[in-house]
């Protein structure tokens, strides 16, 4: 989730508030494919990635392409998109939470830590996705082009990188990641039209903390936020923990204005 957002941000300079809605879309793809039509779970995952990634490419082509370099406008448009998607989801999927049965059930104990099997699947798959993304960006030609665009679009264009294609692809991959997150978490949590609202806020915190535009930073930020919340909950009320999360953000930005692993 945060990874996708950070990718979109770094490549396209877009603060995409509708990102959570792509996550929601991934959740509903899973609900319909897996829970309603009984498609194999892992196939569903692939399907979710493709559908949501496709939707992302579409959004970029139709909308965000025309707003390159206009961060504020893109922000407003992403809000509009958020509302459109959320309202459409509510109209077509209903307002009630939909549950997706677990693909795997039971719990395992790892070093005395209790964890459900389905969460384990999430962790493993998510790690695999992160690794795959990292390798892709590092070694694949397209991945390298993406990084080049992120650093300096003009220079990249001079080198013969097709900015348009790379932007669409970057947006698509970012959304696909959100879709994957939605699909992965659908059985763990439930799916609903507004399920994207909170994760997108969390994802924002994570990328601020980790350093905007830095993928390893996003991973680190995610772990850090998880730790702060996990430990904080043991001592404080939930509201205080939430506040703590934001205070950590503020503190980190003061010490390292570009985030933990951000580049100046």
């Amino acid at each position, binding site marked *: 989730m945060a990874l996708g957002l950070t990718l979109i941000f770094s490549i396209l300079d877009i603060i995409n508030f509708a990102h959570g809605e792509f996550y929601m879309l991934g959740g509903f793809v899973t609900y319909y494919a897996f829970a309603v039509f009984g498609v194999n779970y892992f196939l569903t995952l692939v399907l979710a990635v493709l559908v949501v990634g496709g939707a992302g490419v579409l959004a970029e082509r139709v909308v965000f392409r*025309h*707003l390159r370099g206009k961060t504020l406008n893109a922000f*407003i*448009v992403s809000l509009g998109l958020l*509302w459109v998607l959320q309202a*459409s989801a509510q109209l077509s999927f209903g307002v009630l939470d939909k549950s997706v049965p677990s693909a795997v059930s039971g719990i395992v104990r790892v070093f005395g830590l209790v964890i459900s099997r389905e969460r384990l699947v999430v962790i493993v798959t998510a790690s695999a996705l992160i690794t795959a993304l990292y390798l892709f960006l590092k070694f694949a030609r397209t991945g390298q082009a993406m990084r080049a665009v992120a650093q300096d679009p003009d220079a990249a264009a001079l080198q013969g990188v097709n900015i348009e294609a790379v932007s669409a692809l970057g947006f698509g991959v970012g959304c696909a990641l959100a879709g994957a997150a939605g699909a992965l978490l659908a059985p763990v949590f439930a799916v609903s039209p507004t399920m994207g609202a909170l994760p997108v*806020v969390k994802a924002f915190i994570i990328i601020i903390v980790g350093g905007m535009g830095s993928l390893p930073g996003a991973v680190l930020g995610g772990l850090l936020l998880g730790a702060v919340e996990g430990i904080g909950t043991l001592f404080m009320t939930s509201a205080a923990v939430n506040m703590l999360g934001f205070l950590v953000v503020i503190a980190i930005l003061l010490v390292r204005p570009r985030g933990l692993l951000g580049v100046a």
Partner: protein
Amino acid sequence: MSRRPGLSPALGFGLLAAAGVAVPVLTRDSYYLDVATTLLMNLVLTLSLRLEMSTGQLNMAHISFMGVGAYASALLVTRAGWSFWGSLAVAPLVAALVAVPVGRIALRVSGPYYFLITFAFLEVLRLFFNNFFVDYLGGPSGLVEIPRPHPLPLSGGAIGFAGKLPQYWLMYALFLLAAAVLIRLEYSRFGLVASAIRQRDLLAETLGVDIIRYKLGVFVLGSFFAGLVGVFFAHSHQVLHSSDFGLEPMVLLVVFTVIGGAQSVWGPVVGTLVLAVTSELLRELHHYEILVYGAVLMVVMLVCPEGLVSLPGRIAHALTRRRDAKAAAVGARVAP
């Protein structure tokens, strides 16, 4: 400062003032007065938000200072036994005072980082209103039983503020004050300096502007006006809840401003008016309300990225171009 294309400040202000007087002349219906009052509140908020944006920074915590003013005033009146009028003078100052340290911290970063750090402040303050000093701030249940503005004693008797109409006039007075200050600033050297900072902050700095101090000043002034609206809000709504100062209403303010056009001081005015009317009309659509609203935003941003305020200029431009093209085409045919 120097003449700029477009509406002269005095004329624009005059039109706004006249429109404000026209509302109660045209209708005494409480609903329309309520909508108009809310509109005026939003106008002050968006105008002051744009003042901050004019230096190139989007402050996502703007509405929090409305909250600070609102809660401060509610407490001053209900707990300390102040008169509304005393609180009206002091509570906005409280908002401005709180803005000083927040601004100092937030302004150490800029661009998208500023956007996000102020967003963090928005959430911190909202959570604060919602969860801390529950006995005083009302917590998640909200702060209730805030009295209406106290009657204003005058030589010929007192003016009461129980009804919608006097409340409208009160807000109208506050709006005129705020609009006068904000429009005046825009067309003075402040506006000029702000646009300089927005365009090239480094150049402005080497030409002698202490940009941090300037941005902080703008931040504090903007927060003052947000706090002013907050005071009125507290006593006209009589109920305060943290959700009134959260992300959603904040996002709406940004939307009003940007849709109208953040480049011009008239942008937020146009955006707020148009979208307020739009959303009241859309209210009838129930579940489709949000859907249509979102679609409208996307279309406006794609069709005129500079905001609605740029629309007539663009249309005129397009028309002349078309005419020119036609003339050229005719010319081309005639020429040989």
